[in-house]
């Protein structure tokens, strides 16, 4: 007799469908409910992002939602900052306190509020709030995350990888992945890789570390960190030399034929030749004469030159060919620097060309371009590229990202079937984005959006005395294209009073006293420093977190947030939606359970605060609230007439998409549809979107843009040239002397490579080894460690050493190493990895925890063995001679150069008891989690 197994247990009483927020990928989840509680979470099969699958973090959401580290009530600091001595207060007291600080500031010096919002998924809302408040000091975390990637993409082709586009997973046959461990598009990439490989397609992983995606790569290119630009341009060199480029594509869809002033003595040297309407000119092969680039029927000539008024003009393409055909970019020249044999670079270039051109295919789909030419088919180029922070988080990252885009554009694969595709609302050229704004009026709103895309030196946010208008010094000569702000500079600038002092630092969802900061030790000190009068240098700090993170102890007022299952959120087309290449989409979160603590959704709190402060946009002329909470805002706010945070079910009868008046039942429709809305892109509009009339018209109809805005890709960036030109002494807007050389070098209109920040010869000798971090797939930054399930997988993070360093130093399993950089020193456990660039060490990011935080016991391995590399990374580079110390950042965008870190390694003998440096334990605001868990909701 065989025992009987229960094969049909009841699964749940109800499924509530919402959106995951264990990371920023925004997958759809089915939350199974039992007794009104969350019992089990699985992926939503209908959801466009994850199509049913779910990552480890997503499935562990139940442990996050119930984590003992959840904050329970508003807190007011009563001990010294950093002591963790707080008093529980009511929400009324908390909001009165905040209003008491913020209202007087707004009346006199709104810029003395710095509002920065970390891993915020409601940036169009928080940004709007900050704009109505009137401070110029607002940004989210983009500046230290991937602004190089975002900005290089927008300035080159109107969108980037990251969340703005994806490989054509159904058609691509070869994918090159640069510097990606996990990315934001976490599940879609995994789904795509699985499909690609199951189809017999191939993956080339360019990454110093062979783990994760690079482990399944058919080819692993273990490049030396910071040298991708060279590697990419060497491939470009090979492709140009062999003539394996898509000339038809280049002439039609890029500025390759646009005429550039080639006279070094002319004031407009390097600028485009334009007609009276300001349109870029090309030579038409039909007539041999200049014509506007978008003239119907024009056949732009790449081979011509043009003389006009004594000045020679050459097409962009010729400048490009001149540069990259030079021996500087020959595989032999770059091989050693990149750590890749020349033969392998050649072979990879050949493989790319073979697949792009010999395996090319056409989709039977007619389409019409912006010049009115109808194409019978869509020309496919089944080679795609994807890249993320590995090339982005270096001081040469902007130009490296540009180089990668140039490569894929030369192949004609961007927006071609099989290549890289944008996700609506992208593509969007620079011109379709706002410029940054800084116009402050006491008691009034800012004169426009904070962040944007500058078109030239005149758009920088500089005050009359040339100093920065923003506390983070975004949009200054130091980093002109800092389109996402520079969150990592806020605390140190505010501490230094440079460019000015602030009064209140208002942070949301950012662990700035720990893993999000460079030089964590110093940042903790800056947050607690007092001035001569005994006052804190940063007088007020308000922080909203949902959990007892390291940052909590450093705030004066804590506004405890709900978990992601307890609130409304809006993942909006105004912000970073959930679109896929074939469909535009947006999504919500909604309270699938009610909070059981005295916590409030941060967005509701912002609405409340806005009303208390009487902010325009949130109050009417009589000072009465316009929205009673965030859900109301999501439903009824209109950014432009008919355009609101959500695109689905608009209009009184819920039939309108994209444009339409608000629908009071909109959220119910979203909930009924599984928490998201999706509108397919019409068939004929699916590829070649920047030039495809069908797409442009559809985008206008959907409210993604207000008029068709076709454009061509910028192989050559005239905007960059304008900055370079200014640095060469032209024009009214002039950089400070000490930055001229840097601007001339970094703001080259054609991508180039220069060694990353800490690769100077002297530094390399003293600190020869590159040190990197990677995202573990099963952890999200600091916030995964409170998760009882996930922390068993990644409770510690050894420093992985390549075989060479392992053997040279005689390391054995169980050993520890002292790791020193120009900025400091840490002592940490080590482990051996053979599939690693021989000059690189790495560890998992953000596993190390400060003792006492996150409701973990003080002897938790995260606190005793886990560690951060951040102690080694300074926000400024070591001094070079008498010059002011330069930021450890990309000179174009200000992107934090996390991955430029160079170190030296010694065996720590005897090893310490605990990872060093050690900090005193934090006082927990939530007590300790339970000893044992036997989690079961049902029964």
């Amino acid at each position, binding site marked *: 007799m065989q025992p009987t197994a229960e094969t049909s247990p009841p699964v749940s009483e109800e499924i509530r469908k919402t959106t995951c927020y264990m990371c920023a990928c925004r997958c759809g989840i089915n939350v199974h409910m039992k007794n009104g509680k969350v019992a089990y979470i699985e992926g939503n099969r209908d959801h466009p992002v994850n199509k049913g699958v779910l990552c480890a973090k997503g499935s562990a959401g139940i442990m996050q939602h119930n984590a003992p580290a959840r904050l329970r009530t508003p807190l007011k600091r009563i001990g010294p900052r950093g002591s963790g001595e707080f008093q529980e207060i009511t929400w009324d007291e908390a909001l009165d306190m905040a209003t008491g600080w913020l209202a007087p500031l707004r009346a006199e010096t709104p810029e003395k509020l710095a509002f920065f919002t970390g891993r915020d998924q409601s940036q169009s809302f928080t940004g709007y709030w900050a704009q109505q408040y009137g401070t110029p000091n607002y940004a989210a975390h983009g500046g230290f995350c991937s602004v190089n990637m975002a900005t290089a993409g927008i300035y080159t082709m109107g969108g980037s990888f990251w969340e703005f586009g994806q490989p054509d997973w159904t058609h691509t046959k070869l994918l090159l992945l640069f510097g990606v461990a996990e990315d934001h598009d976490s599940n879609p990439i995994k789904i795509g890789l699985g499909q690609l490989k199951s189809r017999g397609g191939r993956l080339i992983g360019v990454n110093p570390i062979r*783990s994760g995606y690079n482990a399944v790569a058919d080819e692993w290119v273990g490049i030396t960190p910071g040298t991708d630009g060279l590697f990419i341009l060497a491939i470009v060199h090979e492709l140009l030399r062999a003539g394996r480029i898509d000339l038809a594509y280049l002439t039609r869809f890029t500025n390759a034929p646009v005429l550039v002033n080639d006279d070094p003595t002319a004031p407009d040297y390097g600028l485009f030749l334009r007609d009276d309407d300001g349109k870029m000119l090309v030579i038409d092969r039909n007539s041999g004469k200049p014509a506007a680039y978008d003239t119907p029927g024009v056949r732009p000539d790449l081979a011509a030159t043009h003389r006009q008024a004594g000045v020679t003009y050459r097409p962009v393409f010729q400048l490009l060919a001149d540069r990259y055909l030079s021996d500087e970019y020959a595989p032999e020249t770059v091989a050693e620097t990149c750590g890749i044999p020349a033969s392998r670079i050649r072979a990879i270039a050949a493989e790319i060309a073979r697949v792009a051109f010999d395996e090319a295919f056409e989709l039977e789909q007619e389409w019409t371009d912006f010049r009115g030419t109808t194409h019978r088919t869509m020309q496919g180029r089944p080679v795609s590229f994807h890249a993320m922070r590995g090339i982005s988080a270096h001081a040469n990252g902007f130009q490296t990202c540009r180089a990668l885009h140039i490569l894929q554009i030369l192949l004609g694969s961007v927006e071609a079937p099989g290549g890289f595709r944008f996700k609506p609302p992208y593509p969007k050229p620079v011109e379709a984005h706002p410029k940054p704004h800084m116009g402050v009026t006491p008691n009034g709103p800012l004169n426009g959006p904070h962040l944007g895309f500058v078109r030239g030196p005149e758009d920088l946010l500089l005050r009359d005395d040339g100093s920065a208008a923003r506390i983070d010094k975004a949009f200054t000569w130091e980093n002109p294209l800092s389109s996402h702000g520079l969150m990592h500079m806020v605390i140190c600038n505010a501490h230094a009073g440079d460019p000015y002092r602030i009064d209140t630092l208002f942070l949301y969802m950012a662990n700035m006293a720990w893993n999000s900061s460079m030089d964590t030790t110093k940042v903790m000190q800056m947050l607690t420093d007092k001035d001569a009068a005994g006052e804190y240098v940063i007088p007020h700090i308000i922080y909203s977190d949902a959990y007892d993170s390291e940052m909590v102890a450093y705030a004066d007022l804590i506004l405890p947030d709900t978990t992601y299952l307890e609130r409304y959120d809006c993942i909006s087309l105004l912000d970073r939606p959930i679109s896929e290449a074939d469909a535009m989409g947006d999504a919500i979160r909604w309270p699938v359970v009610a909070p059981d603590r005295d916590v409030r959704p941060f967005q509701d709190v912002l609405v409340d605060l806005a009303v208390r402060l009487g902010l325009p946009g949130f109050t009417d002329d009589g000072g009465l609230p316009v929205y009673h909470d965030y859900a109301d805002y999501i439903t009824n706010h209109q950014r432009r007439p008919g355009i609101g945070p959500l695109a689905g079910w608009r209009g009184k009868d819920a039939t309108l998409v994209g444009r339409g008046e608000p629908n009071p039942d909109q959220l119910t429709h979203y909930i009924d549809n599984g928490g998201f809305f999706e509108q397919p892109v019409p068939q004929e509009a699916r590829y070649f979107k920047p030039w495809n009339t069908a797409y442009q018209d559809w985008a206008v109809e959907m409210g993604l843009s207000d008029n068709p805005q076709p454009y061509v890709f910028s192989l050559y960036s005239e905007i960059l040239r304008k900055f370079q030109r200014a640095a060469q002494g032209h024009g009214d807007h002039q950089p400070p002397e000490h930055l001229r050389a840097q601007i001339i070098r970094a703001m080259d209109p054609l991508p180039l490579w220069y060694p990353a920040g800490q690769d100077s010869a002297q530094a390399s000798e003293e600190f020869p080894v590159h040190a990197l971090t990677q995202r573990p797939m099963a952890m999200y930054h600091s916030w995964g460690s409170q998760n009882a399930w996930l*922390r*068993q*997988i*990644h*409770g*510690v993070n*050894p420093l992985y050493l390549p075989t060479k360093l392992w053997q040279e130093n005689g390391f*054995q*399993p*169980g050993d520890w190493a002292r790791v020193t950089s120009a900025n400091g020193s840490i002592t940490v*456990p080590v*482990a*051996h*990895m*053979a*599939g690693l660039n021989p000059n690189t060490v790495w560890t998992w990011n953000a596993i190390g925890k400060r003792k006492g935080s996150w409701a973990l016991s003080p002897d938790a*391995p995260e606190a*005793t*063995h886990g560690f951060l590399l951040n102690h080694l990374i300074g926000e400024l580079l070591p001094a070079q001679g008498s010059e002011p110390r330069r930021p450890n950042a990309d000179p174009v965008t200000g992107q934090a150069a996390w991955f430029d870190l160079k170190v030296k390694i010694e065996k720590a003998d005897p090893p310490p008891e605990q990872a060093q440096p050690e900090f005193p334990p934090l006082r927990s605001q939530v007590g300790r989690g339970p000893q044992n868990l036997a989690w079961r909701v049902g029964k």
Partner: protein
Amino acid sequence: MHPAPSVILFTVLSGFGLGLLIWLGLGYPGVTGWKTFIFYVLAYGLTLGGLLASSFHLGNRKNALKAFSQWRSSWLSREAWLVLLTLLVMGGHGFGVVFLASHIPPLGWLGAALALATVFATSMIYAQLKTVPRWNHWTTPALFVSLALTGGALLAGQAGAATVLLTLGSALQLLAWGLGDRRFALRGHTAETATGLGQIGQVRQLEPPHSSPNYLMKEMVFSVARKHSLKLRAIALLLMFVIPLLLLVLLPGGFWICGFAAVSFFVGTLVSRWLFFAEARHVVSLYYGDATPRQPGTGQTEPSP
């Protein structure tokens, strides 16, 4: 394997107890009446004490009776039956010897056979495991049985038999160690066969699946340093065989001498049994082999031999 005190005590104590029962069943020492009572108490005490110890190894004692159900296939189940029968039969036999001063040979022989079978069944629990090549060999039952007989002989004051058995046992022990040391490799279990990745090349663990300890690692991925184990082997040999033999051979045989020899042998057997577990390498360790030490308490601190 993790040398859990409960299992070590169980096998050693019950081995001694059952060994003594074998001798008692066979009619040694040839006494009857109250004098014998103490032997039976000792034998039952040891056997039951062992059983009690073993129950600490159970996660869920309330179901313990269920362990009798699978005698057709499970050595553990067979052991349970056999020990029960042994205790019953020998109880009957003992009753006769102690209270009726009458020795019923067929009953005694049956009891002795059952006791022997029990020890054998215990040993087969280990010997049957292909997953632990060191155990998976005839030397395991041979050694268990020999040690039980020896212990019993010493307790029963059978100096002559004990001398022979000790000599035999030492040879068996050395053989078991000697052959056992090579068996894992001989069976061809490697990280390459465990993962099936040997086609590509040599396999090494990069990152364990969990940074914190789990049941498998605590229970099965245990290793002792070679140095350490050689020292312990020497100690075990000394206590189990050398000292008892010297006592028995050099000193005039007698109850007390046997007693001292038995104590030495007992302690030595505990050491040997500790090594029996600690040196036994389970094939699952191949999946964790050369594991990077992640945090204290994960058991493994160096590559398995």
